[in-house]
């Protein structure tokens, strides 16, 4: 691997190969120096927390599904962060700059997969989530979880080659897999993709995500902002001028006291 990164880096997780050993969870904790954790009032039951950036969810039927940040190609979290604390790295990872963050937690609200977690127990809290081991990847390494996986259930590569590999696996053994690559098209595509023998839409509020990138949904309204401002200001100025002129012509009311407020009977 060269020093500079080529293409959007990605992870492909094949849940049919996962045996639920949680080596990835441990490797992630060691690489990112995450402390030990215990169940808290605010924890969800998916095992992710401010100190667990990836987790294994056990599904009825003995299937294991790994949860982590999906590193969307057009991430909702990056688009909504008012201070730009979240950003897309050149590797494709969605990374976080705690020094900019002001703690509004809009990213947590906007994420369609409900991934970012918060340091609820700390007086100085930060948003925490998988960063695709961005530092290592930039130096030609790979994420800790993919290095640790004993069965090769989760692998690292460029997004394009992983999509090819995923499709090859599904075609080679169509009975084993649901014919879908989760993350290929959803919300405009994600860098962490999954193939599985079960339906994985439980990872996103139980609904199927369509292929519209989420930032596109606020684009119209946000694009209209300058026009609305100018339009409203122009309309109000125009109205003010017309109404004032009309009233002066009719002579019904003396000139409005916009200069020197009358103070409502006060001592102006």
């Amino acid at each position, binding site marked *: 691997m060269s020093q500079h990164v080529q293409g959007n880096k990605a992870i492909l997780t094949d849940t049919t190969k996962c045996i639920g050993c949680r080596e990835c969870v441990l490797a992630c904790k060691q690489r990112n120096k995450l402390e030990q954790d215990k169940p808290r009032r*605010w924890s969800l039951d998916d095992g992710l927390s401010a100190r667990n950036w990836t987790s294994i969810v056990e599904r009825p039927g003995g299937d294991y599904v790994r949860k982590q940040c999906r590193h969307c190609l057009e991430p909702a979290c990056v688009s909504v962060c008012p201070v*730009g604390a979240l950003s897309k790295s050149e590797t494709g990872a969605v990374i976080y700059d705690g020094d900019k963050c002001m703690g509004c937690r809009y990213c947590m609200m906007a994420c*369609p997969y409900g991934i970012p977690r918060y340091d609820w127990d700390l007086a100085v809290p930060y948003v925490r989530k998988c960063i695709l081991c961005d530092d290592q990847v930039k130096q030609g390494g790979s994420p800790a979880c993919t290095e640790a996986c*004993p069965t090769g259930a989760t692998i690292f590569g460029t997004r394009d080659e992983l999509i090819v590999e995923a499709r090859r696996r599904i075609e080679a053994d169509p009975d084993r897999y649901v014919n879908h690559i989760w993350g290929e098209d959803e919300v405009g595509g994600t860098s962490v993709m999954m193939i599985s023998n079960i339906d994985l839409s439980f990872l996103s509020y139980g609904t199927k995500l369509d292929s519209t990138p989420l930032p596109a949904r606020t684009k119209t309204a946000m694009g209209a902002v300058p026009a609305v401002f100018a339009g409203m200001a122009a309309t109000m100025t125009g109205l003010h001028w017309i109404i004032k002129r009309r009233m002066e012509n009719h002579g019904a009311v003396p000139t409005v006291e*916009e200069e020197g407020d009358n103070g409502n009977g006060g001592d102006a």
Partner: protein
Amino acid sequence: MNRARTLKTVLWTITGFAAAVALTRFVFGLGATTNLTDGVPWGFWIGFDVMGGVALAAGGFVLTAFVYIFKREELHPIVRPAVLTAFLGYLAVIFGLLFDLGLPWNIWHMIVWWNPHSPLFEVGWCVMLYTSVLALEFLPVPLEDQPRWQSIHRFLSKLRIPLVITGISLSTLHQSSLGTLFTIMPYRVHPLWYSPILPILFFLSAVMLGLFMVTFESETTSWIYKKKPETHLLAKLNKATPFIIGLYILVRFIDLGVRGQLGVLAEGGWQVGMFWVEILAFMALPLLLMAIPKSRNNTNLLWTASWLGVFGVVLNRINTGGLMHQGRGVEAYLPGWTEIAISIGVVSAAALVFLFVIEHFNILDARPVDPEKAPTEKPHFEPVGMVWLGSPEVSARTGFSLAFVLAAGVGMMLLSGKTVRSEGLEPTVVIAARGGDTLFVDGNRDGYGVAFTHQQHERRMMETEANCATCHHMNLPGDEQSNCASCHADQYMTTDAFGHDWHSSPAGGKLSCTQCHAAGEVRSADNAKQCDACHTDLVPEYASIEINSYEAPAYTDAMHKLCIGCHQEQAVALEQEGLPRCTQCHGEMRNVVTADARSVPIRPAPGVVLPPSTVEE
């Protein structure tokens, strides 16, 4: 007691109570003082303080538009309180936001680091700018009594129309952008509240709420200070209200129709109920009350209509802001008393400032008389010791301080329990083992754990005198069940797999000493035969395992690494890459518990009968 003083005492009490919670919030974090979770990161503080607060302050821009743009001069007497309410409202929003932000000292970051794609960035900037505009709009009021500042006063008065127009435009932007905030959450917000045109709906309801709020605030102030209510003015203002409410309801239903979500209304459920409550009780009812001229001109009915409307729009904001978000397998979020205390505390503080300002500046047509300042009031005595409480003003202030301090004390008392000590940790609810009987126990959450077969433990232990409480008890603080080691005390000890007694027993193996140990030597494990000398098929020919030790690994070694740990170590030690491959043990089976690992049964050596317990089950 008079109304103003009673009200102020109540407000000071609430503020004191909130102050205690506020202190706790900043020392112990959000987890200790809110019911927010990773699944519900926005709650009451965003829904009420910020979204509701901004909407509540909409009276400012709506009324300035009526008076300064549309020249409805007759409404002039209520424009000052409306601008004041808006100004204080925005200050309260910013102040309230400081509690909700995780890193409130970074609130200024938005000025330096820009992300113009973010609706929240837009809202933030508009709120900053509009608060400044409101400050400039309001500044002439305190300045008008100051002869030294008359030039500034005159300058600001000349700027009035540009300021009003800027204010209206900024308000249009951020009132609607508060709706835009949620358009990025199509999968999260309930279909009855989600809409791509949320910005338009939010703007319409903000205009509506502006009118309600001006009415409510004016009628309430009149009541507090026993002034003549300005119903005749407000009735005129509210001629427009029914049309705006009607338009809002119409747009909302058309939007549901266009999106094909009208069917959701037939589905039932509490969300649908909430939708109808919002529409019928808090929108249609005030519409009706304001549409009929007779009720519109009646002070009590107009006041009722206004607070219904205010409540309705705030409810809509809370619903859109979090209450009506799709469940995520977590318990429904309800705000904690601490959250409500802070919110009401912020409002109370703003109300106290409002009362102070209208008593000291020319806001209303006549300054309401501060009842404590009445010089003719008789002296009050403290009822027990008959001590003079000072002049009415001093005694009122003493009363307020006392209320504040006592309430803060009570608040501290309520907070000083488990919540704070355990940094928000509360007993976790027992969740049934997912995926069947087997529980993955990972006490320290390091990712390693054991597969715990609950049902099997239960069955075996019930045969003895044990019951559920043997493991699930509460004997130590924070202790909810026994750990494995309290029964499996030997879980860290390696085990001798060789049953010496059985082998030498006449009832068992019937072996004499020399059959295993060399004769004439001190008998020890070192000079004994190896197991496979007799048990020739103990290790199948094709097995890759070499036996060097007859000690079984300890529970912790065997189970905590879930087999794979040793396999990995051995793969390196023996240079056999295939050893940690899953299929080595699992074949096609992927369940750890039912792993087909013991595919080679141990058979007895020729002529030896094994005890029943070692025979394959």
